[in-house]
């Protein structure tokens, strides 16, 4: 497919990198000029993070951090009002035996469930208290992204109008893999516009790359740059519906782009690995990777999230273990 010579939508970010009136050709030239990723080396680096040994106070601090960074997620066709309310209550109080446990960062649902979450959170919504819980909604014909642009925009606008604080959109992987990088870019810009609320403020935009379908780390790196240039507040690995979902090498590759973007512009982009992270031990490794790749200032729910559901219960169990000295069991934490 030949690159379009027509101008791309300009964002302040793309303007700073590609100049004004940038075309798809300019975008492609830029993305092709980014240094490649050596997969063997990237995997070795990720394995190195896994050898860090977090004990005692470091482990306790890490577990609390993980808990506060979880986007507690349910994205099923079978989601109901009851299911969503249960999840929202758990987001507020993840461990009923420990009132000191932090609440999670957000509840992540389909757009039509946003109002239910809002009702269930009540005064615990982030707008009411700084340690409260946000509402994230997936949009843009999640998870496949195979719909027309008007549908994707309406999907987004609906979720925002229902009260979503954060929008998790998917990129058009088909367009990306066929080389229509300008189309992917323009779609992200359009969805970013659709995130604008009536009062002029914006819902936070997380851009899901679905790295399991992009397959190579070179693609992951290019897609990360593309998403950031188009206006992503967060870049996110996966929908959770495709295997492999989040992996450490993929996450490190994305974090390296975030680090380089910060070095270039001073701007901080968030990161969200999602899917497949079930054990506290694995999640701790992600924290190590974040701290040693982009720096400790990223270890906040504003800049790092875990898209997960069963991870939360494992963190609760590990925290109980640290508090009491012995492991309980699945019967001592709540089912969702």
């Amino acid at each position, binding site marked *: 497919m030949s690159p379009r010579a027509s101008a791309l939508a300009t964002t302040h970010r793309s303007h700073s990198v590609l100049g004004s009136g940038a075309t798809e050709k300019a975008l492609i030239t830029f993305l092709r000029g980014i240094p*490649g*990723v050596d997969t063997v*080396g990237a995997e*070795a680096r990720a394995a190195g993070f896994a050898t*860090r*040994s977090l004990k005692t*106070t*470091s482990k306790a601090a890490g577990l609390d951090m993980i808990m506060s960074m979880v986007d507690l997620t349910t994205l099923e066709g079978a989601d109901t009002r009851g299911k969503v309310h249960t999840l929202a209550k758990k987001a507020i109080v993840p461990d009923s035996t420990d009132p000191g446990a932090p609440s999670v960062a957000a509840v992540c649902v389909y757009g039509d469930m946003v109002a239910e979450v809002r009702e269930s959170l009540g005064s615990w919504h982030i707008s009411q208290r700084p340690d409260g819980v946000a509402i994230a909604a997936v949009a843009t014909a999640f998870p496949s992204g195979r719909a027309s642009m008007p549908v994707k925009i309406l999907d987004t606008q609906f979720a925002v109008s229902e009260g979503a604080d954060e929008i998790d959109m998917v990129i058009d992987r088909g367009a990306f893999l066929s080389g229509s990088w300008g189309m992917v870019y323009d779609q992200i810009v359009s969805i970013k516009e659709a995130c604008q609320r009536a009062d002029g403020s914006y819902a936070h935009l997380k851009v899901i790359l679905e790295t399991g379908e992009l397959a190579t780390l070179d693609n992951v790196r290019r897609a990360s740059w593309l998403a950031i240039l188009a206006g992503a507040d967060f870049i996110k690995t996966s929908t959770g519906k495709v295997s492999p979902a989040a992996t450490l090498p993929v996450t490190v590759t994305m974090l390296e782009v975030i680090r380089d973007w910060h070095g270039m512009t001073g701007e901080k982009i968030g990161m969200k690995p999602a899917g497949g992270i079930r054990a506290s031990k694995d999640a701790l490794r992600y924290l190590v990777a974040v701290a*040693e790749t982009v720096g400790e200032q990223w270890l906040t729910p504003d800049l790092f999230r875990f898209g997960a559901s069963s991870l939360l219960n494992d963190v609760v169990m590990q925290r109980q273990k640290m508090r009491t000295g012995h492991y309980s069991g699945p019967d001592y934490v709540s089912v969702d």
Partner: protein
Amino acid sequence: MTFLDYAPAPESTSILNLKPSYGLFIGGEFVDGGGSSFASISPSTEKTITTVAEATEADVDRAVKAARVAYDTTWSKMSGSERGKYLFRIARIVQERTRELAVAESMDNGKPIRETRDVDIPLVAAWFFYYAGWADKLEYAGLGPNPQSLGVAAQIVPWNFPLLMLAWKIAPALAAGNTVVLKPAETTPLTALLFAEICQQAQLPAGVVNIITGAGATGAAMVAHPDINKLAFTGSTPVGRQIASTLAGTNTKVTLELGGKGANIIFDDAAIDQAIEGIISGIFFNQGHVCCAGSRLLVQENIHDDVVNRLQNRLATLRLGDPLDKNTDIGAVNSKAQLQRITELVNVGEGEGATRWSSPCAIPEKGFWFAPTVFTDVHTSHRIAREEIFGPVLSVLTFRTPEEAIAKANNSPYGLSAGIWTEKASRMLAVADKLRAGVIWANTFNKFDPASPFGGYQESGYGREGGRHGLAAYLNSSDWKAGSRS
């Protein structure tokens, strides 16, 4: 405490069962040495770990005699498959005692536990497994149909990879049917003495492996001993040169694995973040105490600033400190003498006008330490671009074209290792073809495997260790000729 300070995670030393003093391992048992004993200290705490005997000339003679008897009566008569069984047994015991050996090595050498646990000791086991497999297949080593063992091999190993270098020497020697007298370095005798215990545990016939401790004089006595058939040495080039001149004109076979000043070449199309990791594993692995270290960084000039900037940012995250802490990346320098040598050469570098940058990490009060250091503005005429520093010090030079990179990389009296970083495979192969170095890594560095031969050009020594080629150092090719059988 911030998250990155990571709470201490020390490996326990309770697994060790060390004796307060060790004798010499000769003829299958520990015996007293004739010389005075000396202490082996931990370079990270300067505390004595144990004391060891110093072998005199008479002790060396005793060890060589024990090896000769074992060779004549047992080992040379044993079938290859029987020898292989012993080597497999040793390999398995090393695996079983991995944690113990890793802790001992980290204490005695100063290198971090993550390296001894994840690299040194697993490779030791791999080396014995690999050569165990060769023991009954020597006829297929490419040396003719009936290659012959040499006899008694005297082996002198350095302090940078104490047990691994022992394995590199002992495994092929034994597989090929030789018996050995091995001397570990005087600052790192501990794991060799534990290995002597492993030989006992494996019920290796007495005298097949003899371990004697001592310093330069002991080594010189080994080299000068008239009844050795083979001398294998890994260490510094000046000592290697002395050995070569002592043994010139004799029938003793010699392999020398000496110093290096490896060039690590970064082209502008390299996968940059992985190249940074490769630069680090090239020179900061094992505190830079690596003969094949990539101590000369050759960066294409158009990406020089970016590479240096990324490298410094990354180096600032490395953790220097207690070698037994599982989160330590950079351990202690092995000895006071080595620390002085590093310090001296770094001062020379500053005096020559190169720009020094050292990682801002905290240095412990006790012990011998050197912060990871990078010199930029280094030119080919500088001493720090030519001499082996053998410490965590990197010299950064630039080049403009592949031809210039090759010329600069080869402009060294050494020739042990080199690295190439590029995403372009054709360039990788073309450059590798023109580099004069025994080992060339592409898009990686400091990776070892028992199946791969290792050795140098010019002042980096001669002979090959590892792989099928490593067997040639311990075998005489068959004198078999068509129509006759000896």
